[in-house]
């Protein structure tokens, strides 16, 4: 068991706020006192966090700390979990997407998600990428061709598959499938990309390609990267948030958090004492 002296709640909150950039207008996604209940258990507790525009923010922590749950609130995939309930707000461009009147279909077009295990549809590469645009109303073949090409290029996959777009997605390697899923997600031109441990099911070369992609993608999108791989966070993320048992422990620029963690819990996690 880890013994941690966490200061008085008020002091802790002050600390966290102090390490966040004060220019709130640059935050694309803002979590405000977000809590998530599974049944009666308060799984995520009062998390307030900013995700800055066109930056990669890593969310890390030991298993069960709530990082994937937090991710799922941003595109309201949490709605699909039976018995899950949220409190607090998730603001995207200043609008609270957790309010019941907010259109979930549009939200998910604007906030894309890449899953831990690549989940391409049982269809061709082309149809996978074209799936989103088709759903949202694009029917013109020329337009679709263009979108597919752009998206595959954006995912760094185009050159590898351009001559075989009709091939079944399942025939691709794991790393390629994941990049296909990224292409699929960006085909609907979202503004935010949520990545849930996107390389944990991939081999090293596949992981490397995805990490390179993440660094390129941030020029166009705002990325939230959930990962348990500390080195990965250190490599690609601009900002890092550390969650433990549903609470936000520390947040700051990645360099800061790794070299000079403010909280003892953070330090213990980074140095591998648990998690």
């Amino acid at each position, binding site marked *: 068991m880890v013994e941690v002296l966490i200061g008085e709640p008020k002091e802790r909150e002050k600390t966290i706020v102090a390490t966040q950039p004060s220019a709130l207008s640059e935050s694309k996604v803002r979590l405000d006192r977000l809590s998530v209940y599974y049944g009666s258990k308060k799984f995520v507790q009062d998390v307030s966090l900013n995700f800055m525009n066109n930056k990669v923010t890593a969310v890390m922590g030991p298993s069960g700390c709530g990082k994937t749950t937090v991710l799922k609130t941003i595109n309201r995939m949490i709605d699909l979990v039976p018995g899950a309930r949220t409190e607090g707000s998730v603001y*995207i*461009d200043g*609008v609270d997407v957790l309010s019941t009147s907010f*259109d979930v*279909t*549009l*939200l998910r*077009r*604007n906030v894309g998600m890449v899953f831990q295990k690549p989940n391409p549809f049982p269809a061709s590469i082309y149809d996978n990428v074209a799936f989103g645009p088709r759903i*949202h*109303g694009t029917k013109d073949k020329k337009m679709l061709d263009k979108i597919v090409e752009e998206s595959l290029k954006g995912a760094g996959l185009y050159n590898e598959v351009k001559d075989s777009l009709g091939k079944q997605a399942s025939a691709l390697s794991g790393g390629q499938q994941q990049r296909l899923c990224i292409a699929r997600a960006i085909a609907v031109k979202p503004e935010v990309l949520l990545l849930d441990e996107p390389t944990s099911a991939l081999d090293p070369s596949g992981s490397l390609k995805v990490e390179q992609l993440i660094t390129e993608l941030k020029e166009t999108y705002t990325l939230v990267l959930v990962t348990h791989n500390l080195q990965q966070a250190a490599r690609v993320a601009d900002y890092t948030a550390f969650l433990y048992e549903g609470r936000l422990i520390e947040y700051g620029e990645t360099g800061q958090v790794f070299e000079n963690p403010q909280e003892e819990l953070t330090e213990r996690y980074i140095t591998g004492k648990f998690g």
Partner: protein
Amino acid sequence: MKTEEGVFARKTWDKSVRALTLVVTVMILIPLFDIIYIVVVNSLPGINLDMFTHLTVTDGILNGIVGSLFLVALSSVIAVFLGLFSGVYLSEFGGRYASVVRFFADVLTGVPSIVVGYFGYIVFVLYLGWGFSALAAAIALTIIMLPYITRTTEFALRKVPAEIKEGSYALGASKATTVSKISLRYAAPGIITGILIGVSISLGETAPLIYTAYFYNYLPNLALIHSPVGYLTWIIWAFINEPLVLAHQQAFVSSLVLMIFVLCLGLGARFLVARWWKS
């Protein structure tokens, strides 16, 4: 945040289609409740002591009840014996022969019950000269029940965890001992469920019985051949077309009795399955 044209149309489709699935599900349940309703309501006037103690010739259905139970009991004895051991074979042994048996079990499930009945008529009633008889009917019902009992026994035995069986083998027990003392005990609820389903099906059959047992207005005598037998489903079929009010009552009360039997068997099966999953 982007907006999008056509979202309203998509959402309307979504709500409409999903509401439609609810409507259809409710609609399919209406006949279910209606059937139960008309059977209950129309049999009420006929429910009296005479109905259950007299024979069909004297405004009762006793011979129908006894006959149905008699035929089902007789066929169950044969079907359970054959089905149980066949299921044991299929679950314990593999190979070409087992696949062939499985194939024939599947084919047998699909044989229309009237064809089974006609087969019974040709072979047992005519060719073997038994005439309309309980045994001919029982064999016809056995043919219908057999594939179900075989396959449910097989599935139930397959679910017995390998560790339990291996524990028995490791102690030197033979396959036969393992199966009878360990596996069957473990799989019993599943097997019994299959038997209950088979019994339920055979209780409700008419076509295979029409030309094997024909009909009899008196209690079945226990001779297995040369003697026709009466049963509930015949009463329902034949008497509803008679112009007499009393005949209709006999038909409805027979339906009620039949449905109560089927319901009890079905509930019994579900209850057993629930208990099985818990163990």
